[in-house]
């Protein structure tokens, strides 16, 4: 005989799990804060006139630069070519910049040495001579905080509106359970970031908390749709709230996983392939995704069971109520 999934029974367990993680996260956050990724990056720029001086020698120049970097013990993370434009006509001047980006961990002195050695190498080369200039730079990113807080507000408002819709369409018990899941996911996501020391940008925690809220509502939305459909089935009428919710939730695993596994795979693969800022978004976004799966399958159904029982009782007592006078007459 297969064991039935009874979510309500495990409510104290899920509350304990969430509470422990959130409290631990709050403690760690108050001591260390979030692990913010360094907004710093370092570059070496090689300027050259591609038209007049070193036409068709760009590849040779890049090869020389890269060989020089490896000789001097620095390795770049990204490489791009920038074309200089005339401001008045926005047309190309023929000057190019070959820009190599290095991680923020690269030692400043090492980077300066690599740049000056590269300059020496290129100037000694008759092919390039003085046609190229080499400079090393340290860049520190600035953040537009308005965008960050407005993103968080937008996601929070969207989550609340979706919950109100859930309330109207699927009943207020579902809306309350969804709200609990939403708040839990927001706090739990922030706690996981604080506990696991996952590197994030300055706006990251707020944005990921908002994303967790939206994921949570959407997954709960799917559960609510399934429950509404399942509860119409006559087989469910003989079940208690505990059993009915458990059976419906257990039946929706496949459906939800069909959507989530490819989505998580896309985030993970793109996150591993992408570089820099995009990676710092795509990989951590798996945290709110995982947290919302936990709450929509375990926590929210467990919260829903007592609520549904109470709402069902209220509904049935409302149906039975016929008024005191009529009840006395009926008794007589």
């Amino acid at each position, binding site marked *: 005989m297969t064991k039935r999934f009874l979510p309500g029974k495990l409510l104290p367990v899920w509350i304990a799990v969430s509470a422990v993680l959130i409290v631990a996260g709050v403690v760690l956050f108050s001591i260390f804060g979030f692990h913010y990724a360094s907004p710093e990056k370092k570059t070496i720029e090689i300027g050259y006139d591609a038209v007049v001086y070193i036409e068709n020698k760009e590849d040779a120049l890049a090869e020389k630069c890269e060989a020089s970097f490896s000789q001097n013990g620095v390795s770049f993370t990204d490489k*791009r070519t920038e074309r200089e*434009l005339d401001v008045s006509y*926005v047309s190309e001047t023929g000057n190019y910049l070959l*820009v190599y980006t290095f991680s923020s961990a690269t030692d400043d002195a090492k980077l300066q040495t690599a740049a000056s050695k590269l300059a020496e190498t290129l100037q000694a080369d008759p092919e390039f001579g003085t046609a190229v200039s080499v*400079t090393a730079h340290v*860049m520190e990113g*600035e953040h537009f905080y308005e965008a960050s807080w407005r993103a968080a507000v937008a996601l929070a408002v969207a989550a609340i509106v979706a919950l109100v*819709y859930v309330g109207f369409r699927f009943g207020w018990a579902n809306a309350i359970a969804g709200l609990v899941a939403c708040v839990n996911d927001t706090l739990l996501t922030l706690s996981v970031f604080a506990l696991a020391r996952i590197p994030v940008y300055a706006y990251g925690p707020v944005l990921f908390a908002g994303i967790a809220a939206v994921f949570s509502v959407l997954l709960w939305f799917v559960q609510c749709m399934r429950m509404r459909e399942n509860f119409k089935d006559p087989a469910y009428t003989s079940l208690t709230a505990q059993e009915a919710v458990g059976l419906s939730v257990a039946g929706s695993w496949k459906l939800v996983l069909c959507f989530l596994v490819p989505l998580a795979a896309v985030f993970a693969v793109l996150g591993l392939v992408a570089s820099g800022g995009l990676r710092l978004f795509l990989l951590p976004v798996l945290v709110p995704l995982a947290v919302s799966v936990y709450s929509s399958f375990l926590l929210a159904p467990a919260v829903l069971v007592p609520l549904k029982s109470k709402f069902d009782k209220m509904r049935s007592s409302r149906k039975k109520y016929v008024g005191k006078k009529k009840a006395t007459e009926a008794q007589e």
Partner: protein
Amino acid sequence: MGKIKSAILLTLITLIVAVLCVVCFVPFPVGGDGIHYFNPIINWADKSADLGGYQYGEEAAYLGGSYSVVFYPEGVISAKQYSDNADSDETEYIAYNGGSVYLDKEKVCGGGTEPTEEFKAAFDVQLRCLKERFGRLHSEGTVLEVRDGFTVQATLPASLDASVAAFLYYSYMGDVTVLYGTSSDAASATQIIPETGSKPKAASEYVKGASMRSNMGTAFVEVDFTDAGLEILSDATSGAAESAGYLFVQVGGETVINLSVSEQIDDNLYVSGSYTNEAATIVANTIDTALDCGDLELGMEMGELHRSEAGFAPLTFGSVSLSALDLVYIACGVAILAMAVFFLIRYGLLGFANILTYLFFLELMVLIYWAVPIAIGAGTLAAFAISSVLLCASNALSYEAARKEYAVGKTMASSVKTGYKKCFWHIFDLHIALVAIALLVYLIALTELSVFGLALTFGVALAGICSLLVNRFLWYLTMGLSKNPGKFCHFKREEVEDDD
């Protein structure tokens, strides 16, 4: 519907989808000279700074990547500028940060070897001002970085039409001044705001702010004056009806608004003309932020303008180099092919209804991205992926609902009708909730998230319409072609056990 009618209609729809497909995605030569090519809509659509763009046509217009500029505070020069004027500058400048930039010994270092506290404070104000200006652009892909301690590198997406104007205007640092004269040359005009005298006041005493306004598609800049400012302006322009004058609004001594005046000005200034929304925003931001930053004596210069390719490094396979955009197209192609194969295997020839619906959706999305316009970037692609999954999932949901009905013995027409009836509210609820979420995100959030919200709003709304209307209509048409609809859709009846 009869078989012939169904066939004709289906052929017509397929032709329309095919033509749209060519218009949206396929470049082809025109004119027979081997030089001119038809550019598909996807090439015309804006690309964000993260994706590589195209160069096309004689104008070689660029549709992706970004522009960047380095701003140098007065007294700070680049290594290139230093080496260009090495003889004269050698004694005036000192190398900073290993020679990445050079600092004026007197202006920046006060005769010493390190920047003075006054210079650092003034640079902080400049940085705050630039941050406010670029932040207010609310443009996806805007990046601001402090470079080598005392210069600022700004990056804007190439899809922003007024990028170069933004760099130029935003480099203007200093207080706001208003000048009035009878010649179109600002140098001969007289400063009227702030009043020059023994006790000069700040410009913010006369000008409250500036903002971009738009009416009936015309963008204009509104300069909001205080009562004191209006009084001065009214006095200065009192004779404009008789002899026309010229009004100049300057920031840090650079003219940002220049207009001829033919009547007395006694209200706020509404300046229209050839402004686009972006250009008017940039001018208004320049004035408004200059008022906040106060009388800054340190000027700023804009360095060389650079255009860079995609933010992601392209992949190279032997002699073939793939840009980020190429990779996106390949990924989309593979995903669409996988979807088509899955639907054909699972639902037989009914899969064609889904493929046609999806292609129709895809083409409309591309047209929307181009027409709105929405820059194709990470946010747009994420929204497109979510909408596509939603459309295919909704179609599969309706097919499965009909399959269940057919299995219990209903006719195909009845199965489709009941199936759609059963899953209608699921599809509707999911789409309407997502549209509401996406719309709110678009309205409240900024930059990347706002673009994502807008793309998702269109995508989900279109996916809902395509799933509930287009897909059902195409299903109805494809059914008309077959004598055995069950076999056509790979639907089977449930086997009933015979009591005998």
